[in-house]
């Protein structure tokens, strides 16, 4: 005994010695690889020897344990890897751990057995394990027998579900049992005097039941529960559409609801959000990237935009008829053979140059872009003769398809909406037509007024068809509104007196003289002055 104590003391000392200076381990890392390897080995051997010594000394103390077959009496270090040493240690530790566990449980069962004298021992997993226990109580033996029986029962009727069920039930029962045990314990302590009566009542209450009966009881309970649920009214949560009146007040608050929002939820304004907004605003102002609304202009589609506009020439044409038809014929011929004409104009070198340049630029374009830019389509000039094939008398193409004719929409613009008779018009239609009519009238009137003004400027005294009526109207208007008739300060009609006439004459003459003088001045040259 003393020897052992001394050994242990020694071991402790050596251990403290080795682990005094933990920087030893660090030093190994810092030094170079070859040297450190050797140092590591030294330390390693040291620690291994120490391990062996401690193992051997402690092993000698383990007399009482029964699992000597499993573990090693002495730790073998020589020629053994660290991994293998670990495994040996693990063996030892595991067995020790198991034994300790067993012992602790055995203490627990002894305590239980004292309290559960009268109760039937139920199958417990833990109790099944401890058949090896060396407790000598009769009750234990009985219990063991019954446990064996129960085990057999279990093994006969093993299903996953049943096992799980039994597990659960076991857990429940252990808990229940523990509670029941506590109760009984207290009861026992209380009613020690009235044993006989208590015993009777207890007996009546807790008859001995087989496992099948227990199971059946449980199932019945469950079935009863389910039947009750099925018969009674469903709770409001399972009733489909529910209004607020049909459910208790504030019951929805306790519910966890799942629903989709159709609209965007309002933004939660936090400090961060506000800062972000401000940043955005400042950036926008700096970049001057406003979100102004741009006016949309409706594009005007003219159906006849492909036809040449005819200008009505009111002079005698300078070309004779023969020449006109000649020009037309030439044009027609050109139209049929446009290629030959173009080729003649360009020189060969020009053409070659053009081709080379085109290819070069195309290649450059491809290289400078990440995205593919397709070849721009060469504009095809197609001259459409809006004639059916039969009427092309002199033209050369014998086959003309309808696709080359102008579409009807290109000749005349399409009318919007359905055709409506005058009686079928609704109020909106009538108003729409009226509006269009008014717009046209206004434009027409505008044009007329412009024309009148222009004609008045060009020919002040000219009288048009309706000029008489217009002047009458004007005069009436003036008379009605009592407008002052402004005198025109220009024009020959303005001469009222001879004085005015001569004044004007003088003005014109003097202005002419001035211009003449200026002209004279201009004519003076340096050359002329030189004598």
């Amino acid at each position, binding site marked *: 005994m003393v020897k052992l104590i001394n050994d242990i003391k020694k071991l402790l000392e050596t251990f403290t010695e080795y682990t005094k200076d933990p920087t030893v381990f660090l030093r190994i890392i810092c030094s170079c690889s070859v040297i450190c390897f050797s140092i590591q080995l030294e330390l390693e051997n040291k620690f291994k020897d120490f391990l062996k010594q401690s193992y051997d000394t402690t092993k000698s103390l383990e007399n009482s344990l029964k699992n000597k077959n499993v573990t090693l009496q002495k730790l073998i270090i020589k020629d053994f890897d660290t991994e293998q040493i670990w495994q040996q240690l693990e063996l030892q530790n595991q067995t020790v751990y198991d034994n300790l566990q067993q012992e602790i449980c055995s203490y627990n069962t002894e305590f239980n057995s004292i309290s559960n004298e009268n109760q039937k021992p139920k199958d417990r997993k833990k109790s099944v394990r401890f058949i090896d226990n060396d407790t000598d109580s009769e009750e234990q033996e009985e219990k063991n027998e019954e446990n064996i029986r129960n085990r057999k029962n279990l093994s006969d009727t093993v299903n996953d579900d049943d096992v799980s069920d039994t597990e659960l039930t076991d857990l429940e029962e252990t808990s229940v049992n523990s509670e029941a045990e506590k109760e009984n314990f207290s009861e026992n302590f209380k009613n020690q005097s009235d044993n006989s009566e208590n015993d009777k009542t207890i007996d009546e209450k807790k008859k001995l039941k087989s496992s099948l009966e227990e199971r059946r009881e449980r199932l019945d309970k469950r079935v009863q529960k389910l039947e009750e649920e099925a018969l009674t009214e469903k709770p409001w949560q399972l009733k489909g559409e529910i209004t607020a009146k049909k459910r208790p007040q504030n019951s929805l608050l306790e519910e966890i609801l799942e629903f989709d929002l159709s609209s965007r939820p309002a933004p939660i304004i936090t400090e961060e959000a506000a800062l972000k907004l401000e940043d955005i605003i400042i950036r926008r102002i700096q970049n001057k990237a406003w979100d102004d609304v741009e006016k949309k202009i409706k594009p005007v589609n003219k159906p*006849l935009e492909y*036809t*040449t506009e*005819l200008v*009505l*020439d*009111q*002079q*005698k*044409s300078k070309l*004779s*008829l*023969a*020449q*006109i*038809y*000649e020009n*037309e014929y030439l*044009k*027609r011929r050109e*139209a049929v053979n446009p290629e030959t004409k173009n080729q003649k104009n360009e020189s060969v070198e020009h053409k070659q140059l053009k081709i080379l340049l085109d290819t070069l630029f195309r290649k450059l374009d491809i290289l400078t872009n990440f995205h593919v830019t397709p070849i721009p389509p060469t504009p095809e000039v197609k*001259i*459409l*003769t*809006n*004639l059916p094939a039969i*009427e092309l008398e002199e*033209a050369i193409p014998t086959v003309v398809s309808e696709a080359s004719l*102008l579409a009807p929409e290109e000749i005349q613009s399409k009318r919007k909406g359905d055709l409506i008779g005058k009686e079928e018009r609704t109020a909106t239609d009538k108003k729409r037509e009226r509006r269009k009519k008014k717009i046209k009238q206004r434009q027409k009137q505008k044009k007329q007024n412009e024309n009148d003004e222009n004609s008045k400027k060009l020919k002040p005294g000219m009288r048009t068809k309706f000029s008489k009526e217009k002047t009458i109207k004007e005069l009436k208007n003036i008379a009605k509104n009592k407008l002052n008739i402004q005198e025109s300060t220009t024009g020959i009609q303005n001469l009222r007196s001879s004085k005015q006439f001569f004044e004007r004459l003088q003005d014109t003459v003097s202005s002419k003289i001035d211009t003449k003088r200026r002209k004279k001045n201009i004519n003076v040259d340096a050359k002329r002055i030189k004598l």
Partner: protein
Amino acid sequence: MEPLRKQRVISKFHSKKSNKHKIFKKVKSKSVVEDKREIRKISVPAHRYTPLRENWLKIVSPIIEHLNLQIRFNLKSRNVEIRPESVSDETGNLQKAADFVKAFILGFDVEDAMALLRLENLFVESFEIKDVKMLKGDHLSRAIGRLAGKGGRTKFTIENVTKTRIVLADSKIHILGSFQNIQIAMRAICNLILGSPPSKVYGQLRNTANKLADRL
């Protein structure tokens, strides 16, 4: 007694070959071979006499050179006579030449009438105002004035738009051009005769002319 005067040839047939004045021998009636060549005669009114004289060369040269015909102006009967060189004339040149001369006589310019020679599908349409509407006196004059327009503006616009040539000879109207164009011009003229204002006629003209312009 004086012998029978020799019938002198009044004027010569201008032909390609001869430019000199030849003295023809007396021809016996037996030796004269019956000339089966077709002769076209176009009478010339007095007011076209001077213009014919002035433009004679212009008229005659294409007929002789290109159409291979013989042409002369019969002073006595005041006819322009055309005949082919050979007996058979299959090309239709004679008809062309006759039309050409006729057009000139009606009042068209030589250059305009020349188009008849060069193009085959040109025609001359003539009608009177009374064919369209019975007008008398002032109305007639006003109608003629409407047709012509101020300084001939209306007439020229119709001509330019429809590629035709129009001759207003008092009450008679002659139109020279292709068939479709003649129709359009005629329609315009009829509308003017019937009394529509020229602006309206211009508008209608423009519409139809646009459709025409699509045809090449």
